[in-house]
């Protein structure tokens, strides 16, 4: 990895990317605790088998599969378009970005391209999704720190306004099923755009308020700073993506790298963390919300009129030529990718979701080892996962 700018310390020796073995101090017995699957902080049904020496975590094994329904198999048994509503159910906080990732992969497979106006609508919806996801992720994190309810409800108050926008446009608050291959399902109206502008005008005030309330809070700093540190070399090696990767100081945002959609037209910055601890992950999300507002303002100003569907795209008898494609986007939780193989039939031969939530959990044990058991809840919360996507 020479030349990649990372600190060259203890790495590249045998097994440097494995979690360290922590020896118990020899006093008393070890306690094995199953955290979950019904623990309120696991965001669903997820289990961690934790071995404790006193309060110190010396081993952690995540257990998956409680919500497994083999989404990939179901998608291989149905047509390309019929999987679109099902992608809403992967990460049910961000159905619109799931739609986009799937539409992007199919567009790569068939060589379609969405028209200008549809691209702008996609960016607007994706950034609104990012804001509501980050706001609630932070709300949940603070909730798990013990601030029961209030900060989460502050976040949900704002999320509610964004969900109302989604409902007005797509007919559904969370299961939007909005993107299509080569465009979008319905056009936005001028009234909707005005409504969106009003909501967005209120967002900076909300973020300021949120940050003033929380950012320099003594409890938050004491519990988050220096806890759950993730080194950048390990983060890259373990395939961590999204705000978690950038909180560790790695400048990698797929919106900047791949320029998918029309992201090269907007001026925005990529916030990076210094320490890779929980506080940095919190802070990166706050700053990303601010950058999303920048993108939204530019997109709402520039949005052109025109068609919203590629006229060449087929709804009936949609059979891509044999081949394969991997399309990925920067979803709020990380790199969301879809890998498709077509054999020329109406169904995908192979349909694969690259779930950021699952892969970001690879390093959960590394971050938790040696920490107190109470911090496991916080570290887990700072990863920001949705079990619908982890187990698929």
């Amino acid at each position, binding site marked *: 990895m020479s030349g990649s700018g990372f600190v060259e310390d203890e790495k590249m020796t045998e097994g440097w990317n494995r979690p360290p073995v922590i020896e118990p101090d020899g006093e008393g017995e070890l306690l094995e605790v199953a955290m979950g699957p019904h623990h309120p902080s696991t965001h669903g049904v997820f289990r961690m088998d934790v071995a404790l020496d006193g309060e110190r975590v010396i081993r952690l094994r995540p257990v998956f599969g409680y919500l497994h329904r083999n989404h990939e198999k179901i998608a291989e048994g149905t047509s390309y378009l019929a999987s679109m509503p099902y992608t809403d159910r992967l990460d049910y906080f961000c159905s619109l970005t799931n739609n986009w990732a799937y539409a992007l992969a199919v567009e790569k497979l068939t060589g379609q391209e969405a028209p200008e106006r549809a691209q702008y609508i996609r960016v607007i919806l994706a950034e609104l999704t990012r804001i509501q996801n980050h706001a609630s992720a932070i709300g949940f994190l603070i909730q798990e720190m013990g601030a029961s309810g209030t900060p989460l409800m502050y976040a949900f108050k704002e999320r509610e306004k964004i969900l109302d926008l989604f409902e007005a446009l797509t007919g559904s608050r969370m299961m939007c099923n909005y993107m299509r291959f080569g465009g979008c399902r319905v056009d936005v109206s001028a009234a909707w755009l005005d409504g969106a502008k009003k909501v967005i005008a209120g967002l900076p005030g909300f973020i300021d308020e949120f940050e003033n309330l929380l950012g320099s809070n003594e409890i938050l700093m004491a519990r988050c700073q220096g806890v759950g540190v993730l080194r950048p070399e390990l983060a890259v090696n373990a*395939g961590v993506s999204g705000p978690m990767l950038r909180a560790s100081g790695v400048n990698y945002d797929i919106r900047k790298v791949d320029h998918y959609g029309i992201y090269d037209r907007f001026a925005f910055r990529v916030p990076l963390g210094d320490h890779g601890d929980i506080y940095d992950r919190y802070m990166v999300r706050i700053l990303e919300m601010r950058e999303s507002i920048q993108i939204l303002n530019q997109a709402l100003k520039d949005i052109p009129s025109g068609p919203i569907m590629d006229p060449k795209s087929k709804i009936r008898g949609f059979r891509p030529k044999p081949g394969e494609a991997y399309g990925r986007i920067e979803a709020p939780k990380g790199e969301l990718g879809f890998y498709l193989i077509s054999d020329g039939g109406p169904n995908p031969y192979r349909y694969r979701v690259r779930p950021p939530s699952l892969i970001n959990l690879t390093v959960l044990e590394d971050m938790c080892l040696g920490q107190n058991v109470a911090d496991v809840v916080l570290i887990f919360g700072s990863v920001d996962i949705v079990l619908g996507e982890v187990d698929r």
Partner: protein
Amino acid sequence: MKTVEEIKAAIEAGIPGAGVEILSNPSPSAQHSLRLDPSHAVQVATFLRDQLQFDFLSNVTGVDWPDKEISEKVKVTRSVTKTVDGKEQTVEETVDEARKRVEPGCLEAVYHLFSVALKDGPLVMRMRTGNRTDQVELPSLTPIWRAAEFQEREVFDLFGIVFRGHPDLRRLLMWEGFKDHPMRKDYVDPDDYEYEPTPHDEVLKRAEAHKAASQPATTAVKEL
């Protein structure tokens, strides 16, 4: 962005006899892939990470290619004895013959690599097993990219590829004790997912046996 051909040339210069092969992708995405020889895969992967700076393993997945029965028409030339003009002659004759052959299937592991350092990618790598039943081992790339840890477990779980050298190869999504591999194309799902044997099943079996034993007597009575 390096092309697949350049990467292949670099690998072959770095590791003689690596046995890398380019599989072209006819779709508009033009994401061509490199097929690795499993016996050199760990060496090639290390080379890709350390020399070509593909430090980010994004996606690992499996593909099932079942045995394919191919029917084709083959032109066969045979010598046939025929009676032409009252004389027996041996004549060469070309006949179309329908033949069926079975193309053996395999399991495939697919890796999508990116480079965070160079902002490059994707590079698609593939490895194939010998068949789908007893030669299903492939080398694990988890020691090189930690990102493969859970994803290779998932491929092992759903496709049944055994990754040699994986530090903790257990099922990920299905439960322990589950027998089959659900993502294979020939997987048949059970009629009743919730069925569990209970003591009552044995009672029912005994009752069936009693019923069968007492059956002839009752019919005899009816006949009278």
